[in-house]
């Protein structure tokens, strides 16, 4: 069993409680206008356009496939910037065992592991197995998943995955269906269902909403989400939209909301009864 990894961050402080290894898997089932790491969306189609743009000759063709030399690479990300396929040539294949080796290197320093993406639940079987190995061999580590919630967790095939994942961090991009479709190209029915399910299972650690002023009905989403999560110990993270890395023409020149506006949204959530609201 294998998985394609876009990036591993050995120490992350923004992917759940404490210091965590964050593993970003390749591939996504949404297409958000504000995606700031669009290179995680698709799989490399080996067009080779990036090879000539690489200043250190770290990319080459081998048997029709683009090969990446991580020793020579200086991470200038030119390859990612010119990719017209929303992908990256720097994707690495891992097995359960080889990925576990990466965890062993940092196990003394981390409180847990977080799978993110792209959309990591597209690899739910791998994650279920990997977390099962973690629970067996490194039981001190907690197992988290950061998800857009688009796949329907209530289906039987996800039961092992749900069981082995300690906590989820869920994006609620918009509560309003039409707005969600316009933003992500998909509806939010399963996402809102998953929100209720994860709350019922006591497996929801955090909800995230990206705030774009004068573009989304931020107040509506925050009110609705707050009303759902207020009875539980769930964090609500309000993320300022940032246009860094955004390719969408409607959004790439929109500014980040200011602190005053973010504070007013935080107060909405607090007044409804969410205890732990924070802005980043």
């Amino acid at each position, binding site marked *: 069993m294998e998985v394609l990894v876009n990036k591993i961050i*050995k*120490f*992350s*402080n*923004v992917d759940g*409680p*404490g*210091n*965590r290894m964050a593993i970003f898997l390749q591939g996504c089932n949404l297409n958000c206008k504000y995606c700031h790491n669009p290179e995680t969306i698709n799989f490399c189609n080996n067009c080779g356009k990036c090879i000539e743009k690489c200043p250190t000759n770290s990319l080459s063709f081998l048997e029709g496939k683009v090969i990446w030399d991580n020793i020579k690479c200086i991470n200038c990300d030119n390859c990612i910037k010119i990719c017209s396929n929303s992908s990256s040539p720097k994707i690495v294949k891992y097995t359960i065992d080889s990925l576990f080796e990466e965890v062993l*290197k*940092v196990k*003394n*320093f*981390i*409180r847990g592991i977080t799978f993110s993406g792209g959309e990591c639940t597209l690899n739910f079987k791998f994650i279920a197995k990997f977390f099962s190995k973690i629970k067996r061999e490194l039981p001190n580590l907690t197992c988290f998943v950061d998800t857009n919630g688009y796949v329907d967790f209530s289906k039987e095939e996800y039961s092992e995955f749900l069981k082995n994942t300690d906590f989820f961090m869920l994006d609620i991009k918009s509560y309003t269906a039409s707005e969600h479709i316009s933003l992500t190209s998909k509806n939010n029915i399963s996402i809102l269902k998953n929100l209720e399910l994860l709350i019922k299972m006591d497996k929801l650690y955090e909800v995230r909403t990206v705030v774009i002023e004068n573009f989304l009905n931020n107040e509506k989403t925050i009110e609705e989400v707050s009303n759902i999560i207020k009875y539980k110990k769930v964090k609500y993270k309000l993320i300022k939209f940032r246009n860094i890395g955004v390719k969408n023409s409607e959004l790439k020149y929109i500014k980040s909301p200011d602190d005053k506006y973010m504070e007013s949204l935080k107060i909405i959530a607090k007044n409804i009864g969410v205890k732990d609201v*924070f802005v*980043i």
Partner: protein
Amino acid sequence: MNNILNIIKSKNLTFEQKVISLSKEAENSINVLKISEKTKDYLNRGIICDLFEGNAPFRPRYIVPDYEKFMKEGSIFLGLEPATNIWEATNNLLILYKHVPSITTMPVYLGNIDYLLNPFITDVKEAKLAIKLFLKHIDATITDSFCHANIGPKETEAGKIILEIMKELELPTPNLTIKYNDETSDEFSIKAIETALVTAKPSFANEKMFREDFKGEFGIVSCYNGLKVGGGASTLVRIRFGKLAHEAKNINDFFDRVLPDVTKELLAYIDERSRFLIEESGFYESSFLIHENLIDKNKFTGLAGLVGIAEGVNYLLSLEDKKDKFGHSKVANDLGLKIVSEFHNLINNHISKYVGSFFNGKYLLHAQVGIDTDRNESPGCRIPVGEEPEIFDHIIQSAPFHKYFPSGIGDIFVFDETYKNNPQAILDIIKGGFKDNLRYFSLYSSECDVVRVTGYLVKKSEIVKLEKGEAVLRDTEVLGKGARDNGKALERRLRK
């Protein structure tokens, strides 16, 4: 004589700074130490450096009084009875501090102040006021941030108050270390980290490691130097390895000839400085700290320091046409470790009669953090600022050096603001580092006004004043400006 007049007429030295500078001029006007021509040559060329300790040592460089004993017994010389409440306790300590000398003329160690004050806390509100005044008094009168207080390892009410008030005051003095071990609660540690993200202190010391090295009680003193409580260090002389490497023809020559030769001179010089202090200066005969057993001659040693391992290693490898860089290659890191291990052996094989019995005649190693005028010499065994790898790789690279330096070594990490939302993440990193035998860990955040320069703390806003030509309260701000300009000390990699 010209220099004396310059000091007197200076427009940007405080009165106190003038008095200290003038006394240094007087000391340096005599030559009483027996120094070999060879040592003099190394000193003149800046390969051996005594950090301007002065020509006639008349007090130990670092003094680590047994403040516990003082709190129990008071002082006959100072006419102080043991304290009976929090006001008397802070007052007694403040009085004693004014009589504890060191190389800076001011105390470099203030004791485990949480344990010293905790027994006197009856009313939290009153204790907060007393401790606030105590800390403010220290900052405004001990005008040199090499002054260091300790807290922990156990959580106490006093410890929590100290952290809370330091976070509120944002003052550079005193420096602060939390001694961390398995008994330190996560809650107390998180409070310490939250304080450090605002005001660059406390740093974390690996209590278990220091305790083993010092067979019990120890204090963290000056920048981050471990020393024996009730003792101290007579002197600290360092070798600048960035410069020293240039003496070698190749790597073998460095180990066979250059390193043993300079170390021999270094040891002779530490011996001679210690000899004068102990046998001639009269310190041990005149000080009430000795008479009242607050310090014991047998618990003093001397420190052999080093700087510029990174630059030394890179130069030696370049002699053999290798491009490996310290901090980024196994070959370079291994060479660094070999140099330190050889240096450690040479120091450890020397038995000095000027070292107290507690240390069996042996000097200790100290990874010195550099001085403001250093160029091309990174502190101790640190990776040069601007070349720091990812934090995980950084810790794994540096940890193996730490066991050689009971008297101080450590790295400084600057964290992004986002860590304020998740201080547990930093605690996880510290716990991991200490499991890997990291000795000492310092941190601050990108938004701090008080920042750690190399070991000591400065207020960035005070450096701005200094640049405008105004006098500033603390001499360390002058040093901080130099370290910033010459050593890029305020441009460390931001950890996001």
